[in-house]
């Protein structure tokens, strides 16, 4: 008899245990009411709706970014949706779903700061300091765009911005989506340097070795991006990234393109 799938567990439990963070807008953060919201959260809702027909049947497990993979491998969560960049190394430890967002890195400057744009930053060479989220590859990532810049790595997104604000850094480098969100929250104070690089895909992740469960989640996400739940996906996209998505082409499956 085949091993029981996580899918059966979740269904019989009646709610989805979703691992995510609580400190990174617009992906996952708490509103003024203390409730979790953001694009990652909406992806969880998509899956819950596919499971139970009710997007609210989710138990959130908030976790720091260090805890994303351990919580999956030790079975503390059914799935993690937490702006997780897909890499080969990570894929050896967990199974990634299909991507639900494609991201690039951007640079944010102070609106009235001494550097006008990317070209000015690049020209200033080693006299600029860039604040960035902690990461082994953060340095090479920044140097790909600004070969001589100094790099300061911080633990959380708010500290990157704080470094820029207090003059500890001349520009903040992070996901374009985060920059966009931050600028809409603080209109007029910051500007985008107008350069993006370092593409990456964001996926949810589940434990390895449970093809059934992975298939299910993939299906749910796929249909949100191309099928019956597209409206929900598009509304969420608009809400968190401020972009209107064109509806998927009728008649021809996307895979056909």
């Amino acid at each position, binding site marked *: 008899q085949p091993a029981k799938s996580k899918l059966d567990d979740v269904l019989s439990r009646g709610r989805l245990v979703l691992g995510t963070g*609580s400190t990174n807008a617009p992906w996952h953060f708490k509103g003024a009411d203390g409730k979790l919201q953001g694009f990652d959260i909406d992806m969880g809702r998509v899956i819950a709706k596919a499971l139970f027909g009710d997007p609210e049947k989710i138990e959130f497990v908030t976790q720091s970014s260090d805890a994303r993979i351990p919580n999956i491998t030790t079975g503390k969560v059914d799935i993690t949706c937490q702006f997780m960049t897909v890499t080969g190394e990570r894929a050896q430890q967990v199974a990634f779903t299909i991507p639900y967002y494609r991201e690039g890195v951007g640079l944010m400057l102070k609106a009235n700061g001494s550097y006008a744009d990317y070209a000015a930053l690049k020209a200033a060479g080693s006299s600029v300091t860039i604040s960035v989220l902690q990461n082994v590859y953060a340095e090479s990532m920044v140097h790909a765009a600004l070969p001589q810049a100094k790099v300061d790595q911080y633990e959380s997104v708010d500290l990157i911005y704080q470094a820029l604000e207090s003059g500890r850094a001349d520009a903040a480098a992070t996901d374009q989506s985060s920059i966009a969100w931050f600028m809409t929250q603080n209109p007029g104070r910051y500007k985008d340097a107008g350069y993006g690089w370092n593409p990456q895909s964001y996926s949810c992740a589940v434990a390895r070795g449970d093809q059934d469960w992975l298939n299910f989640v993939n299906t749910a996400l796929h249909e949100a991006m191309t099928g019956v739940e597209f409206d929900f996906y598009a509304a969420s996209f608009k809400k968190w990234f401020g972009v209107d998505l064109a509806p998927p082409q009728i008649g021809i499956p996307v895979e056909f393109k």
Partner: protein
Amino acid sequence: MELGPFLNELWIVRYILLEGLWRTVSISLLAIVAGSLLGVLVGLALTYGALPLRWLMRGYTDFIRGTPVLVLVLASYYMLSTIGLQLNPFEAGVLALAVFCSSHVGEMLRGALQAIPRGQTEAAKVIGLTFHQAFIYVLAPQAIRHVLPTWVNTAAEMVKASTLLSIIGVGELLLTTQEIISRTFMSLPFYFFAGALYFVVNYGIERFGKYVERRTTIPS
């Protein structure tokens, strides 16, 4: 740093912050109480245990005290689950802090017990008290007075260490603050406000310790 928007936000999140504060206080209290009780056993074993037990406990305290609390927290959350003990983050975190606390209390108690003149134990024996009675009525009351000042330090350290539970997602004061910051991006004012709340908690512990100390000084 404009004060107006900050106060406005502060008002909006007042209950959320209070909840974080409460969680911090309850984590710390539970860890201190459980850790102290466990620590008494550790201290007894360290002082009076048979040699193998004493070595074991020496290893335990040295290892636990040298390990970053963060690691204890992670170990108690993840490692215990691999051996089948499923604790939720709150329980796992409190357990880790209590274990940490116990190693400190154990050491302190050993120092205090060893500082009591041997004559006290002998005088207790001479009037026929058993070891158990001598400990409760003669040694412990004297050791407590000795331990109190350092115990207060440890209690304050537990409050400090409770922040590390945010790693495994326990919404204590620091994580709550960070969540608010990630929405409002008002890093410094909220960090300082949290700092002030921590100060109040620690200061309360300090005053409480001083109070108990005063109440229990041996008149002379």
